[in-house]
């Protein structure tokens, strides 16, 4: 149900361009990569399962393939203005999660910015 609402909301905001009406629509900025690792419809509904599966494989088995890694998501989807995926309400992860009223815990620990951006600003 949530997935359907999300999908529908996204479609509407795409058609009309700017979000209209009383309901603030998620802002989905164009990602940097050519295309997502899976079809967008699939990712909208299942990215959490995909990430969860990959997380356990990486943590416990040391499999560090890039296909479904959170780091990979961040590298493509970091917002052009803020450089993060969860820094402001317009950033990729944050905007959708705010719209769906689902809290996002990944970035309490994981870096919401790509490696190059972090390397630039971290103290030596």
């Amino acid at each position: 149900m949530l997935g359907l609402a999300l999908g529908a909301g996204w479609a509407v905001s795409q058609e009309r361009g700017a979000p209209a009406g009383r309901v603030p629509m998620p802002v989905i900025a164009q990602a940097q990569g050519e295309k997502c690792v899976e079809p967008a419809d699939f990712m909208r509904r299942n990215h959490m399962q995909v990430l969860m599966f990959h997380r356990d494989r990486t943590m416990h088995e040391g499999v560090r393939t890039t296909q479904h890694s959170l780091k990979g998501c961040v590298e493509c989807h970091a917002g052009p203005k803020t450089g993060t995926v969860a820094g402001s309400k317009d950033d990729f992860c944050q905007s959708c999660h705010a719209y769906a009223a689902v809290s996002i815990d990944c970035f309490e620990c994981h870096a919401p910015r790509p490696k190059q951006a972090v390397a630039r600003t971290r103290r030596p």
Partner: protein
Amino acid sequence: MKATDKARRQFLALAGGAVATLTIAPGVLLLAPAHGRVPGEPVTGKVRWGLLIDTTKCATGCDDCVTACNRENGLSGKTRPTDAQWIRKIELKDLRTGRQASLPMMCQHCAAPPCVDVCPTGASFKRADGIVLVDKHICIGCRYCMMACPYKARSLVHEAVTDQNPDVPRGKGTVESCTLCVHRVDRGDLPACVEACAAAGHHAIVFGDLNDPNSDIAKRIARHQTKQVRADFALDPGVRYHGI
């Protein structure tokens, strides 16, 4: 080169075992990292990563390993009781003889880790290749492991963390310790402390596979007298010290 020669060479390369090779197409070989794991394959118990620390080469006053660890893993480097510390330098002195030794102390990556025994959620675990880690997704921050560890190797993150290294996620309310730079080891690099020690010209820390009799670390251990700290606990640490 004749076709038979090439076939022989490929066979020898595989039999030698120094570098794992995979034939993608005729004449094209995929060279896997030195530890022979193809990307995407899970770690196995054939390998056991460990460190050998030569305290006779470790310089008193030098803390390059500590600063390298802090930089790599995004630690503050402060030493208040609430700051995370993954590696620390220790100065030893024999009061009777006056002999001094300096050594780095960190998670000893035990074969029978007490931190894993006491963990109520299964967050503290030992990877198949001997690296002891905390799965922070499952860690509830109870700190039993901190109390169980005889080496005082673990720390709790007390405050919210920002600007993490994307390879090293860290967050408030979870316990953490030396990961043997697992993110670097998995891509075939050396841990940050080992690299820093070599860069400083001391070469006091050797990293390698304890299970491989041909590895540098295994050869050194076979040749020189080395100690596991508090070997009486029978935890079989993967970190060994020479000269203490």
